């Protein structure tokens, strides 16, 4: 460290090596605690954070890696007031700049804003010019990344005006911190986040109320593959708004609608978390699959409010920073109280020459692409530096130079205790009417080095942020802040078509896994005994066919000798990563992720258990696999129980139930067909297996105390209406659920189909006559009946898909007109 290098500000310790007063209580706790206990708490916090996101990590790009640090970043109230005021001032300013850029553009004419920074800016979306709405300002939610300088003052490292995240993450970290370190919250007087969230919700409602007294508000998300999706889910829940993907919305006659099971429902306010240019394939990026065709036209017509206005990212252009103070003076008549770190735009001669002369003093950043990692010119090798300076010379307007920043230090948990680490603070503010409301809290990220400009959704180690209150704690308030009790919000009433589709398939896949798990358990438990008896051989033959028909093992494998290695390997492989079980687990997980906002925490944990990879312990392969299957079946039991006992009886649950009943029916038919079809050599073996697979052994024991496995016992599986594992039960339940889909007349056909199936089951069965000569005809009759029933259930599934879901999957195509000079070719 050279002599003139400043010493970083320490958040916890003052220059006189004394603990700052606002850290005293927390540090007294930390230091009074045995190190093992602290380590355990730290590990628990990390675990809670991981659990909060659990299923999200799969398929998200890029994969966010989050770590949680137990200790918060603490900001005293007085200091926060300054930061908040500065934040609100910047938000006001950036909003005015957006109003001007998308309106009269006087800032350019008055030489306050270089035209290059607007016209050459990829974030400037020309179709949005003159589309500012009288109903809401272009900037509604603003966030900033802050850094505290050695002198103790906060500076803005980056403005975020596109569609930034902050509050959802902050809520998540608060709840993790409150769980892992409750004693720290006991005496601390901390600003709660919930009142701000409630106020934000009220603000969205107020904006919508200008269009409709009961406005519908949606949060537009790119979907589960977006790395910020967990935040979207959480925010949608907290704000009590509908989480929607582009395909859930449609524009008709210039108005935006949500596709629901009850038809189209008008949408009045869209809080977007999709980048602006992806919002409308008609007028913006034609290749976007995340937006809604015609959305910009609907906004232009004033029929919907879209927040932030697409194109709002112009205001976060790093190149703007040097011009903000003058614009603030002009538009606000104020000096910026929360300035940015010193930034020079290289499109001006002075800064360009300065950087070329002494490059080692600067960090070079893209003027229009803050997401691209900056170059620290002091750390570049000679050849690298030459290349970087050549790029700068070729297009100076594309770069900004920023001063080197030394972040303040916070205590962070490392292997052997606490260490000071650089920190970046993400804070956010929303507007309500003409006022900006900074949210008292945020996300503190631990940086490994100084000059961190990493996007929030990329993850990192995070801390809860406490803004302390000055006044003494109000007891009830404190108790609430302890847990950040979730407010019970009005549940969005309309079930989107996609949501219904997802719930339907969640039900189907859960049942398919249930059937597969039972079949694999029955198979493995016979294999594990070794040297199978003739009866077990017969059963394994049947299982092989069933596993193949269910798609769990391949055709060739199912024909291999059932006491040989090929068959055993194939059964085991079906349960390894990449095998058929994992594939269905993966499918179930994907659906659950896209339903995340509609599943309770308990359901979420159950799905998580359900999709846990099957354990394969070398040496104890069968035993460990059986353990895993049992755990999976337990989770499936919990799944059914939660659906039955804990899910509101709404349309969504109905679709889940319909999916489950159809799939369970299909699986029963499949088993009956496979086990009884093709003249089985030992009917008792088939019947015994059927009862086992349909979890009806106990029922059978009660009904048939003599332990006889005659064909008559199939009655329990097929026609016994009281057996929840039987076919008749599934059909009756289906009929009831279909009746409940009121107001959907096209269902007449579906109902008829189920009625027909029920009738054919009720037809007198010829079980009384079991004379030997008719035996073959009987088994074949049952098998073919099951086959046709399965076919009808699959047809029913397709019919429901057509009635309710297909319209969301119509592909949209883009048409371009012929271009100039092509008429000869086009007009034939």
């Amino acid at each position, binding site marked *: 460290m050279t002599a003139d290098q400043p010493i970083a500000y320490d958040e916890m310790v003052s220059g006189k090596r004394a603990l700052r007063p606002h850290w005293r209580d927390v540090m007294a706790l930390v230091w009074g605690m045995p190190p093992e206990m602290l380590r355990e708490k730290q590990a628990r916090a990390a675990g809670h954070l991981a659990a909060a996101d659990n299923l999200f990590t799969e398929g998200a790009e890029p994969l966010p890696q989050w770590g949680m640090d137990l200790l918060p970043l603490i900001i005293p109230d007085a200091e926060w007031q300054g930061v908040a005021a500065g934040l609100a001032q910047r938000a006001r300013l950036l909003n005015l700049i957006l109003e001007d850029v998308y309106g009269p553009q006087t800032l350019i004419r008055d030489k306050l804003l270089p035209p290059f920074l607007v016209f050459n800016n990829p974030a400037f979306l020309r179709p949005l010019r003159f589309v500012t709405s009288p109903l809401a300002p272009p900037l509604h939610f603003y966030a900033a990344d802050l850094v505290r300088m050695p002198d103790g003052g906060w500076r803005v490292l980056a403005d975020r005006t596109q569609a930034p995240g902050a509050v959802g993450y902050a809520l998540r970290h608060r709840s993790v911190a409150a769980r892992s370190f409750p004693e720290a919250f006991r005496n601390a007087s901390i600003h709660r986040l919930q009142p701000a969230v409630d106020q934000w919700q009220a603000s969205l409602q107020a904006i919508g109320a200008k269009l409709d007294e009961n406005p519908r508000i949606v949060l537009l998300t790119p979907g589960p593959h977006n790395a910020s999706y967990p935040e979207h889910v959480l925010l949608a829940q907290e704000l009590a708004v509908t989480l929607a993907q582009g395909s859930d919305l449609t524009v008709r006659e210039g108005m935006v609608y949500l596709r629901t099971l009850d038809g189209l429902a008008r949408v009045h306010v869209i809080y977007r978390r999709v980048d602006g240019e992806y919002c409308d394939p008609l007028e913006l990026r*034609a290749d976007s699959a995340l937006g809604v065709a015609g959305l910009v036209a609907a906004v232009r017509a004033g029929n919907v409010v879209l927040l932030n206005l697409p194109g709002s990212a112009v205001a976060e252009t790093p190149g703007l920073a040097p011009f903000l103070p003058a614009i603030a003076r002009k538009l606000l008549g104020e000096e910026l109280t929360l300035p940015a770190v010193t930034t020079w735009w290289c499109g001006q001669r002075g800064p360009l020459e300065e950087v070329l002369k002494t490059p080692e003093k600067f960090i070079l950043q893209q003027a229009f692409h803050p997401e691209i990692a900056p170059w620290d010119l002091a750390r570049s090798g000679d050849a690298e530096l030459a290349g970087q300076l050549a790029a700068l010379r070729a297009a100076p307007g594309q770069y900004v130079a920023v001063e080197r920043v030394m972040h303040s230090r916070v205590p962070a948990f490392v292997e052997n205790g606490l260490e000071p680490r650089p920190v970046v603070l993400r804070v956010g503010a929303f507007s309500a009417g003409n006022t900006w409301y900074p949210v008292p809290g945020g996300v503190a990220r631990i940086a490994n080095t100084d000059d961190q400009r990493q996007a929030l959704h990329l993850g990192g180690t995070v801390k809860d942020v406490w803004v302390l209150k000055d006044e003494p704690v109000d007891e009830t308030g404190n108790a609430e802040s302890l847990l950040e009790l979730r407010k019970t919000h009005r549940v969005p009433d309309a079930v989107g078509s996609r949501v219904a589709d997802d719930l339907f398939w969640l039900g189907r896949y859960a049942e398919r896994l249930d059937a597969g798990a039972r079949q694999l358990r029955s198979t493995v438990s016979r294999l594990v005994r070794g040297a199978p008896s003739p009866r077990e051989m017969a059963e394994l033959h049947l299982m092989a066919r069933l596993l193949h028909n269910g798609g769990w093992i391949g055709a060739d494998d199912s024909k291999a000798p059932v006491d040989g290695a090929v068959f055993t390997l194939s059964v085991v492989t079906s349960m390894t990563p990449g095998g058929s079980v994992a594939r269905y687990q993966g499918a179930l997980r994907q659906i659950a992720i896209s339903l995340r906002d509609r599943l309770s925490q308990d359901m979420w944990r159950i799905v998580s258990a359900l999709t846990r990879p099957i354990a394969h312990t070398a040496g104890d392969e069968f035993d460990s696999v059986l353990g895993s299957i049992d755990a999976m079946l337990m989770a499936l039991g919990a799944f059914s129980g939660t659906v039955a006992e804990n899910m509101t009886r709404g349309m969504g649950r109905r679709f889940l139930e319909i999916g489950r009943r159809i799939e369970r029916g299909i699986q029963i038919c499949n088993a009956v067909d496979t086990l009884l079809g093709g003249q089985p050599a030992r009917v008792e073996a088939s019947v015994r297996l059927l009862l086992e697979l349909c979890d009806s052994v106990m029922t059978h024991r009660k009904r048939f105390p003599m332990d006889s496995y005659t064909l008559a016992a199939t009655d329990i599986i097929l026609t016994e209406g009281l057996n929840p594992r039987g076919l008749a039960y599934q059909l009756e339940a289906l009929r009831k659920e279909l009746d409940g889909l009121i107001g959907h007349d096209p269902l007449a056909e579906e109902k008829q189909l189920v009625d027909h199936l029920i009738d054919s089951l009720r037809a007198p069965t010829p079980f009384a006559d079991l004379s030997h000569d008719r035996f073959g005809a009987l088994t074949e009759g049952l098998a073919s009946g099951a086959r046709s029933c399965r076919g009808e259930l699959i047809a029913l599934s397709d019919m429901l898909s057509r009635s309710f879901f297909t319209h969301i999957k119509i592909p949209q195509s883009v*048409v371009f*007109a012929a271009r*100039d000079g092509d008429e000869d070719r086009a*007009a034939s």
Partner: protein
Amino acid sequence: MKRYAVRHETRYTYQFSVDIGMHVARLSPVNTSLQRRLEHTIDVTPTPVWAVAFSDHFGNGLHHFAIETPHTEFAVVQKTVVEISASAWTPASPAPAWETVRDAMHADAFPEYPEPAEFICASPLVQLDPAAAAYAAESFAPGATIIAAAFDLTCRIKRDFAYAPGSTTIDTPVSEIMAKRHGVCQDFTHAMLSGLRGLGLPARYVSGYLKTHGAPHAGASHDDRLIGADASHAWVSVWCGPEMGWVEFDPTNALMVAEEHIAVAYGRDFTDVTPLRGIITGGGEHTLAVAVRVEALN
């Protein structure tokens, strides 16, 4: 002063029924200092359930149509009567040296005239291609007037590039046009824009129509007709300093725009002036028929 009646019809025929179609049209000739729209109608079939007119960032007139009745054919017919005054400028007109215009654009972040500054930047279809800049530079001798130099470039493009319909596509990059030296009016316009902007000069894309001479349907010799045969056309608009403003050049026909070009829309390149853009649900394959007719009224 010339008067023209323009009829421009665009017709899509779809393989399957289209349930919903949403279209944005830039088909309304703009009013400028030299061009006045006297009459203008746009007819769409089937009848849109929703239609709005608005102006874009460049001042072009747009229409948004939403069609929500199933259809297998979609047609837009625009009819306009315009009055055009001839530009006063010729290649020999006294004009500022081209370097003066360039330097006015680059006055350390804050150019004196910010409006043309939008048109010195690269745009989606006009990359700043070094070959295009080098090619253009040959016309821009030190001290040459901007109007003479731009006209020289216009004539060289006509001479050096082959008019070859079908040889390029809607988004052929400038570098390819410069390498192959062929294309249609859109390509020549993009190449010239790239060259001019590469020299730091503001230049716009103009889409519109061209009145051709000779009897278009009588099988007459095509020699005396301008290329663009009563068709939609594209050319270049160059900012020639604050006094002259924007002056237009047609590199496809090696001429300065006088009284026979009818401008519809201005932008940075073709993406800003696309005559018709749409999103449909359903439809399958489609065929497209375009017919343009320009009739002199005096």
